[in-house]
Every structure is written in C-alpha cells, then in structure tokens.
C-alpha cells in the first residue's frame, strides 16, 4: 500500500537523531517488546509484523517511536489471531474461563532461536525471466495491500545485476495466500533515472525486486 512507511525519497521528515553512544534499548520496555514479538510469534499465528505496522494511520506512525510501532502492531496481531481479546488487553486480566496455554518458546529454545539461520530461499527450480545485464522496468502498480515494491522505483528502468534465487512473494505470503515462488533480482537504478538530471551522474541505488514487480524495458 502507498503508506507513509514507504518513505524512500520523501523530504522534511525531521532529524536523523544521531546519538554517539547509543544503548541497544533505550528503555527496558523496548527490549521486552522486541522479545515478546519473538516469543509470541513462535505460536505461528502470523507472518511478520510489518504488514500491521504499515496499517498504523500515517499521522500516528510518524509520531510514534520505533518500538511504539512494534507494540501497536504486536497488540493488533495478538487480537486478530485470537491469542487474547481486546478486552483482556485493555483490562490487563485474562478472562477466567480462558484455558491456560503453553508457551511456544521455552527459555532453552529462546537461546538458540535468534542465532539459527532461517531459510527463506526456496529450493525449487523455476526458469528465470530476466538475465543479468538486461534492462527492466519496475511496474507502475499501487496495491492497497503489502508489497516490497518501493514507490520511488515504480515506472523506473534499471539493469539486472544479479539473480538472487527463488523466494516466496511477500505480497501474498504474508496473508497465507499462494506464495507464488519466483526469482528475485538485484536491480541497479542510476540516481538520475530515479531523481532526474540534477542527481550526481555516477551514483546509483540497488534494490532487490521480485519478478512480478518487473517487466522488460
């Protein structure tokens, strides 16, 4: 969706807020929220948290801190998946009749989980539509649902640098729909193609794009 999260190329969104010695978490709750996302996510009720963060209304999204977005999206995910009701979250008390669940992530498993590399690349043989060196155009599409086709690339022509292999398409995968396995390509766009003649002549932006996002240029 054309949400405010898709912010590549926007200007006027405030300061960088660079900090010289930054702690991993600025407050205890930030670490707890990050950990909760892992621990609750282990119940397998959803795929990723981003789609929910993207649905936070733009004005709220811009105002919230990073982990406030996580907390908001996580809460919505928990309600939507039925792990807890909104009533329970608002009152902070479990309904007495609710059966007690078993944690999906034990402390022992938590030690290993983040250090275990998940496998996202799919081991399936699918012919690639594009080859390195070919010019391709990012499609001019505006889905109202999740996509990884950044707005600033749409309609622009780049050159395929590399074939990344076969991956599920996030646009459908995150909703548990047909994962549409397909090649992902590293595409190089010149800064001038993206931003016009005043951009530095040598500079470039590299983006990985799914085959469905591209057409031959």
């Amino acid at each position, binding site marked *: 969706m054309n949400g405010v*999260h898709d*912010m*590549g*190329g926007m200007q006027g*969104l*405030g300061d*960088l*807020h660079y*900090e010289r010695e*930054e702690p*991993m978490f600025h*407050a205890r*709750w930030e670490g*707890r929220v990050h*950990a*909760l996302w892992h621990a*609750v996510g282990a*119940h397998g009720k959803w795929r990723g948290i*981003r789609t929910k963060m993207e649905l936070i209304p733009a004005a*709220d999204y*811009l105002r919230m*801190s*990073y982990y*406030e977005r996580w*907390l908001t999206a996580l*809460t919505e995910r*928990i309600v939507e998946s039925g792990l*807890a009701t909104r009533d*329970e979250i608002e009152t*902070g*008390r*479990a309904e007495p009749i609710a059966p007690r*669940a078993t*944690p999906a*992530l034990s*402390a022992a*498993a*938590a*030690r290993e*989980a*983040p*250090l*275990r590399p*998940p*496998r*996202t690349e799919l081991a399936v043989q699918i012919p690639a539509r594009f080859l390195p060196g070919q010019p391709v155009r990012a499609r001019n599409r505006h889905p109202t649902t999740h996509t*990884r086709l*950044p707005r*600033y690339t749409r309609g622009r022509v780049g050159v395929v640098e590399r074939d*990344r292999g076969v991956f599920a398409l996030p646009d459908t995968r995150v909703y548990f729909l047909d994962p549409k396995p397909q090649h*992902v390509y*590293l595409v190089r766009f010149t800064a001038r193609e*993206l931003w016009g003649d005043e951009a*530095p002549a*040598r*500079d*470039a*932006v590299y*983006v*990985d794009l799914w085959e469905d996002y591209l057409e031959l240029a």
Partner: protein
Amino acid sequence: MTPDFNAQDRDHDHQAVPSDPALRAKALESLLVEKGLVDPAALDVLVDTFENKVGPRNGARVVARAWIDTAYKQRLLEDGTAAMAELGFTGEQGEKLTVVENTPTVHNMIVCTLCSCYPWPLLGLPPTWYKSNAYRSRTVVDPRGVLRELGLAVADDIEVRVWDSTAESRYLVLPERPVGTESLTENELAELVTRDAMIGVARVRASGDPA
C-alpha cells in the same frame, strides 16, 4: 440535542494515542504470561541475546579477517552468509548477506526505506537514527547530504551506491582498511572497525587519527 462531535474526537484521540508505551508493554507482558502464552524466562534470554550476544563486534571481526586474508575476503564478497558462518556468526536477518566493498572509487551505504532491515548477527539491532524517518526517506534521494550531515564528505568523483534492504538480502559494508595499519594484528584491526563504518556512514580511522 446536537451530538458532541468534539467529545467523540477526544474519545477517538484517546484511542489512537494510548497511554505510556512502557505501561502498555508491561501490562501486555503480564497478560501473556498469565495466559501461559509466554515464558518470562524466554524473554530474559532474548533480551540478553540482543544486548550482549549480537552486535557490531561480530561484524568487526569479519571485516578484520577480510583485511588480512584475501582468500577469506573473496569468499565473503561471493557469499556473505557462508563466510560469516566460518567465524561462527549465523542467525536471523543474516540468512542472505551481501557484503559490499568500499574502494577508492566506490562508497557504499545501507538503508531500509520500507522498515528497518539490518544484518542482526553482525551488527545487532539497528541504532535509532538508522530507523529514523529522516534516514529512511532521505538516504536514497540525497545520500551525499545524509553522509555530510553525519560528518562524512565523499568526493564528487567517487560513486555512491545505496543498498535498499527491502527484500530478503541484508548488507554489510566492507570499509577500506586505513593506511598505517600494516603492522596491526587481526584483533587490533577489529578494534578500529565501527558500526557506522559497516553501515557506510563513516570511514575507519587508524588509531590516534583525529575523527
């Protein structure tokens, strides 16, 4: 009686801007623990992992090894994930690592315009500025301006390459080895390598160099 729209607005604002996130997070955690959905000990372990087990010291070791071992550097540039695993670094957000090399003619920098993607096993969780709306929005359109603001001037004849981590790949910048470090050991070299240099917003300086 006319409906009090202002009251509704206030009510709506109250919904959209909930109370202190620290309190909400705490209440959510207690609820999930009470319902048996989450083991608090697992949360302690996860926080410890992200505070102490992953972080830029891991990435610095990879960089230092690449500086002293050209065969390793070759493997690192060809398959970042396999090469970091050689040094014992694996994990979430590192499953498809691409290492991009800074040279006298090319400067690389990393961003995630859509969210906050970042190579956790080598750099830990991203700093706030990397996740800021300003960095995410400006880096693709004005990388040189962002670099200048962060204190790094890049000459006009150097190509700036921005890597937008919007898909499955995560990136690490292999910075240039500073001159005058020929006699340093691998561990000493690793000490010089900063997180910012591996994101591509700083250069690595030889020890004692003024910043």
